[in-house]
């Protein structure tokens, strides 16, 4: 199998390139290989669409979590405050 034929049939390689392209860079050659693969492979087109969507959802999930402030319980805070005061008074 020639190198071009290899990628047009290889979904493992194609999904790797999809992921690399999503957050990094792929070479021009890889770009062309991926295009050709995707043209002929509907399963990887579904994959590409879903993996982009998943990345978006993960980012959203993380940012929502960051924006909902969690609270430490008061006893823990009080102990922590005392500990800090102790350390400060030592000096």
């Amino acid at each position, binding site marked *: 199998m020639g190198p071009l034929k290899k990628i047009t049939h290889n979904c493992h390689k194609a999904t790797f390139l999809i992921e690399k392209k999503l957050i990094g860079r792929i070479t021009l050659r890889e770009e062309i290989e991926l295009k050709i693969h995707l043209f002929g492979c509907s399963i990887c087109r579904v994959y590409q669409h879903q993996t982009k969507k*998943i990345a978006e959802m993960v980012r959203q999930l993380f940012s929502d979590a960051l924006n909902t*402030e969690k609270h430490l319980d008061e006893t823990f805070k009080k102990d922590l*405050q005392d500990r800090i005061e102790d350390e400060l008074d030592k000096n």
Partner: protein
Amino acid sequence: MITKTHQIEPRNWVAIHADYLYTYAITRINDEEQARDLVQETFLAALEKVDKFEGKSSERTWLTAILKYKIIDVYRKKSSGLVINADVQRAEQEQSDFFEPEDGHWTSEHSPITFGIDEHDPLVNKEFNSILQKCLQKLPALWLSIFTMKHMDDQTTDIICSELKVTQSNFWVIIHRTKLNLRACLQKNWI
């Protein structure tokens, strides 16, 4: 006398920054007790170097930087040692039959098919998010650390590789494997 742009007042730290730092930690390591310990360790470490605080950044930024360092330390510890082999092996095993060994084509059993990922219904999204969270927690510690650093903090690949001590090529293999498992897990649990 030059006045500092930012002041530092350790007696106010708990009141002003504790919940913020706790939230920061727990979203990244997902373990309440460990997150609490990290907040405490951050304050104590900060106390020791208060005199090095130059006021170039705000108190909160400075404290967050210390915490961030500690979180990466947790990532490193979690993903080294004996456990790593077991959880990575299990995760790799999961995807071992996704592709045909001879030509790399999707196997029919594991081919991606369309599922409810495009719904915009908030209720559906809520349910989806809880599945997503479960699927994330199933990932090996090292994979999840890399994935979180990339998608939560937008860290550069170079920084992630040097801090977690993985090579660039291994980084891309891990990103690929993470997404393969994550997507498969979503499809499996959604349908």
